[in-house]
């Protein structure tokens, strides 16, 4: 009994050690790829909070990453701030953006909410292009470079902090409230859970974490322009979250590795031409959905008989507007 309860923290510790030591075996270039996996880890974790745990589907997290990314870029490029110092501000702006988006979310649910977040994700890059003086427009802004090692450790430190924060948050009262909102709004309200508060807060927290991911993202690329945060990014974060398994913090690493490493692996392998990479990647996504519709985490649960500590990963209510 005791052993099972320890399994979670022990695995986390082992993972942390592995991640910390991994760069020793990698070249500098691969370390920056590792940093990107860390960025996606943080972004997917963010999405999981609002979609997997609170049941509010969002296809627009690229927009929140953009908020963080532009905060960091503008402050660093135009005002000479130190890059890491911009992170707290990115978190703050992200939170505000999340709350703003979360407000209309109170009125919509399911597929209408999804498409609203989608709209936000598409609108943000367009708006950024429209104000080039402020954002550098389509040409974007260049940022100082850093070594792969520095980027790797920054990305994974941010990821680790986000993970621990999420883990603590989700196993406490707030987490239970979020899950209550996801599973049954009526039951939640009857138990005294305030829907508007929890729905907006979950968006806020999720957006803040995504913004942090966005900040690191622009640092890794040492460049920012609106197209970086386009539709593809938001879709990839969603794919990563679902492939990993919604409502499970452990699935996040699988999802992040899947969306970042699989395309790169396919491109650099010599067995297939680079033009076939999207075809293969798309096919793999479909196959994964056919075989493991609830994501890798469900496989993990089955293998280890984990009564998941994070609550049952139930179907996200897409399209269930109410009976």
């Amino acid at each position: 009994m005791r052993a099972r309860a320890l399994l979670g923290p022990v695995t986390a510790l082992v993972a942390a050690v592995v991640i910390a030591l991994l760069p020793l075996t990698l070249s500098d270039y691969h370390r920056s790829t590792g940093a990107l996996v860390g960025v996606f880890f943080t972004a997917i974790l963010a999405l999981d909070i609002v979609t997997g745990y609170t049941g509010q589907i969002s296809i627009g997290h690229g927009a929140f990453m953009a908020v963080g990314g532009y905060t960091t870029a503008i402050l660093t490029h135009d005002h000479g701030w130190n890059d890491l110092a911009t992170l707290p501000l990115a978190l703050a702006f992200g939170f505000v953006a999340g709350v703003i988006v979360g407000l209309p979310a109170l009125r919509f649910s399911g597929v209408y909410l999804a498409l609203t977040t989608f709209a936000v994700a598409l609108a943000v890059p367009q708006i950024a292009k429209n104000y080039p003086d402020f954002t550098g427009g389509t040409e974007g802004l260049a940022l100082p470079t850093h070594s792969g090692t520095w980027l790797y450790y920054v990305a994974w430190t941010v990821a680790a902090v986000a993970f621990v924060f999420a883990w603590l948050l989700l196993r406490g009262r707030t987490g239970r409230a979020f899950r209550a909102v996801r599973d049954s709004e009526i039951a939640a309200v009857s138990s005294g859970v305030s829907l508007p508060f929890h729905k907006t807060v979950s968006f806020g927290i999720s957006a803040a974490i995504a913004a942090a991911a966005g900040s690191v993202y622009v640092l890794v690329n040492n460049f920012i322009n609106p197209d970086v945060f386009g539709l593809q990014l938001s879709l990839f974060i969603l794919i990563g979250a679902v492939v990993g398994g919604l409502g499970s913090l452990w699935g996040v690493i699988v999802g992040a590795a899947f969306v970042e490493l699989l395309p790169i692996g396919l491109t650099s392998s010599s067995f297939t031409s680079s033009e076939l990479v999207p075809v293969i990647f798309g096919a793999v996504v479909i196959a994964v959905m056919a075989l493991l519709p609830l994501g890798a985490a469900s496989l993990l649960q089955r293998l280890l008989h984990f009564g998941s500590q994070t609550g049952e990963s139930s179907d996200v209510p897409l399209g269930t507007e109410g009976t």
Partner: protein
Amino acid sequence: MSVRVDRSWIVPALLVAGCIGLVVGSLSSSLFAQQTLSGLANGGIYASLAVALVLIYRATEVINFSQGAIATFTTYIAWQLMDWGLTYWLAFACTLGIAFAGGIALELVAIRPVERRGNVLSVVIASIGLLILVEGAIGYIWGNDIKFMPAPFPAHIYRIGGVAFSRQDIATILIALASVFVLWLLFQFTKLGLAMRAAAVRPEAARLVGIRVSWMLSLGWGLAAMLGAVAGMMAAASPSVLLQPSMMDGILIYAFAAAVLGGLDSAAGAVVGALAIGVTLNLLGSYVSWVTPQLLLPAAFVLMLVVLLVKPSGLFGHTTVRKV
């Protein structure tokens, strides 16, 4: 005692008011008339794709993210047929047939295995995977460069009362509306159409009367792909759209906005929504100076959001909003 105000007249009244506004504007300004017409043409393209989205959504609650990419793929097939010597209209007709078969095949191979065991979200993700796959396939088969798509008719301008109307715009509107109309006839007046509608609203009850519900779904995908092909062909014929793998990406997004604005389970709503978006964006672009081309996409969504805030299930949608 509170009095329940019957608000069901608001939407039709607004639409009628909008139409009157358009007619009056068109009569008083030739620029207005031209922009309205080309806005309707764009709207026609969005409408075809939006109805395709609604068709699949109504049957499965799934938003098919690959609808645009499939439309692009079928347009490339038309291009290829023309490249091999077929005339435009013959290629168009063949493409419709191929799209129908292709849509059915895609549903059987890519979607059904996911649907069997998965939930709505996993099917949506599969459709995103399909989007990536199809666009990649276009690049692999035909390359990513821009192709030249022959026009269906030589460009011709009709002049009525000092206003210039392009033949292509008029043809687009007619063809798009005709295809949606034909589909409507199919659904309302044929045994198969009735079976498809029944399978979409009540699959369990439909099985009990002998309808093969999963086959109805495959047909739905086939029809949606045909509508997509129409949208793609009309888009490619438009001078401002280039034939490349990402051709329908932007149009898909306007189609989403239109479908949501109209109410995701209403095809009529999708058509009205699409035409409204097409016309409104064109007029905004012409008359409001700070609306730059970059702001058109956000503008479409602002329009969508405004409608949703007033009527959360869309213009003609039926979903009930449960307030807690």
